[in-house]
């Protein structure tokens, strides 16, 4: 199939192009090529054991990319379950389209970070691609439960990227984080807008609970705060010891 062929060809291409993004990348990629096939990931034991083998996200650009990859995996998994759930299946067309779009965007983001990390860093340093999540608190057959969780995740994503910007060392990565965070903010506003309409609160899209009405500023939180807040959804343990 034509698509597959393009995809295969572009992987090498992608790796090479990614290298231009930072000096650190060259070293990482060299190791990656040298190590060839021993990058198969061994799943981390989900037991909450302070195992020295627990994956640490790392610091600097690597840490932020792994962190973003974790958040995008969380969002992508959430929307995957949404579009396979009964609420979405019977939802009004506007909501159905919005949630389908959010699924599309988050899966794209997830795969972008996977590709960026693998092209730039040794496989041992890249967050595993199948983090396990727990969405027991969400009822995917219930509209309010789905929309409330979507709002929480999108708002959290905005705060996370806003807070992580200062940790990024390479301008190209900062720009990409910027390209993604504004889309997360567009998502957050759309979900809030739907919920606000229900409540008769037409200001909820950028409500005072999200945007400080005195400064006009959105939230920004350090990774430690975000990981703590999202912890209820994340089963696979990892640490962020080198991030603020």
């Amino acid at each position, binding site marked *: 199939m034509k698509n597959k062929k393009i995809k295969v060809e572009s992987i090498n291409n992608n790796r090479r192009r990614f290298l231009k993004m930072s000096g650190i990348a060259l070293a990482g990629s060299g190791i990656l090529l040298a190590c060839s096939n021993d990058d198969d990931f061994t799943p981390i034991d989900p037991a909450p054991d302070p195992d020295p083998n627990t994956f640490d996200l790392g610091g600097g650009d690597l840490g932020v990319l792994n962190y973003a990859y974790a958040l995008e995996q969380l969002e992508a998994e959430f929307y995957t379950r949404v579009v396979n759930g009964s609420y979405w299946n019977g939802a009004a067309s506007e909501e159905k389209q919005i949630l*389908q779009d959010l699924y599309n*965007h988050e899966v794209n983001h997830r795969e*972008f970070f996977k590709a960026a990390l693998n092209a730039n860093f040794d496989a041992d340093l890249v967050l595993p691609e199948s983090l396990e999540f727990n969405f027991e608190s969400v009822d995917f057959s219930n509209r309010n439960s789905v929309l409330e969780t979507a709002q929480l995740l999108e708002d959290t994503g905005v705060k996370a990227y806003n807070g992580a*910007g200062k940790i990024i060392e390479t301008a190209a990565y900062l720009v990409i984080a910027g*390209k993604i965070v504004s889309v997360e903010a567009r998502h957050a506003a*759309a979900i809030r*807008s739907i919920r606000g309409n229900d409540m008769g609160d037409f200001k909820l899209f950028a409500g005072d609970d999200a945007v400080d009405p005195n400064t006009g500023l*959105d939230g920004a939180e350090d990774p430690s705060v975000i990981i703590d807040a999202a912890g209820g959804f994340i089963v696979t343990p990892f640490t962020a010891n080198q991030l603020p």
Partner: protein
Amino acid sequence: MNIIKFLDEFTSENLSNKGSSRRDALSTFSSLGKKAALAAVPFGMATVTNKAKAATMFQSTEAVGALQLALTLEYLEASFYLQALNSNVLDEDGTGKANAIYEQISLHESAHVTLLQDTLVSLGETPVDEPTFDFTAGGSFDPFNENGTGQATAYAQLLALAQAFEDTGVRAYKGQAGALMGNDVLLTAALQIHSVEARHASEIRRLRGLQGWITGNERGAGMPADTQAVYNGEENIIQGGVDVTTLGSGSPFTFDSSTEAYDETITADEATTIASLFIVS
């Protein structure tokens, strides 16, 4: 063509355009936009003859320049929303929704002006003065229904201009982020404004019946052709050197999804060109 000649021509074209239909007004705006873009290319920011840009030009650091540009764009937005709220045009939406949305956005844009002014002062810099704005773009528009275009047309223009300003703001802040690297406080604050502009953009787009995100370089139904400058480049699918449509298969990797998932930057010059259509002096 230098910018002064351009502005002269802009003014004379307005005069001959009074009372034109909305479609005519929009197409006039379109041709003016092309001239604006052409005028801006060879000369860049240095030739823009308003106080804001002149002051920006003489600042020594990239970061201060970025903040002054941001302040200019915030002046524009803040002034636009205040005038919108002071007109009766938003009553065209009988539900009160449009008015509530504009109130909330206005609150934020005015706060951004104060925040940026205070930040510049704290850095020992003089904030640029507020330019004089003309949201009719010299008579091409009548968003506040001051010239008798009628409430319905004014309302459509009021929404279209808001969308253009918000989508421009998102791209402009993103384009300046690199200039603020190394100053954690400034960078974080700029990012915190940037995502608020994106929330605004999403809601205004939805109020206009569009999706909250940008597909390809589509400006969306009902947007004047000239606002295309706001959307050019949004069709990019190469992120970090990689074609993101190749990262998988299925709906997340279509051209549409791959462009919607990433907002693009614009340069200071591009943002200035767009804003200059509404700046008198």
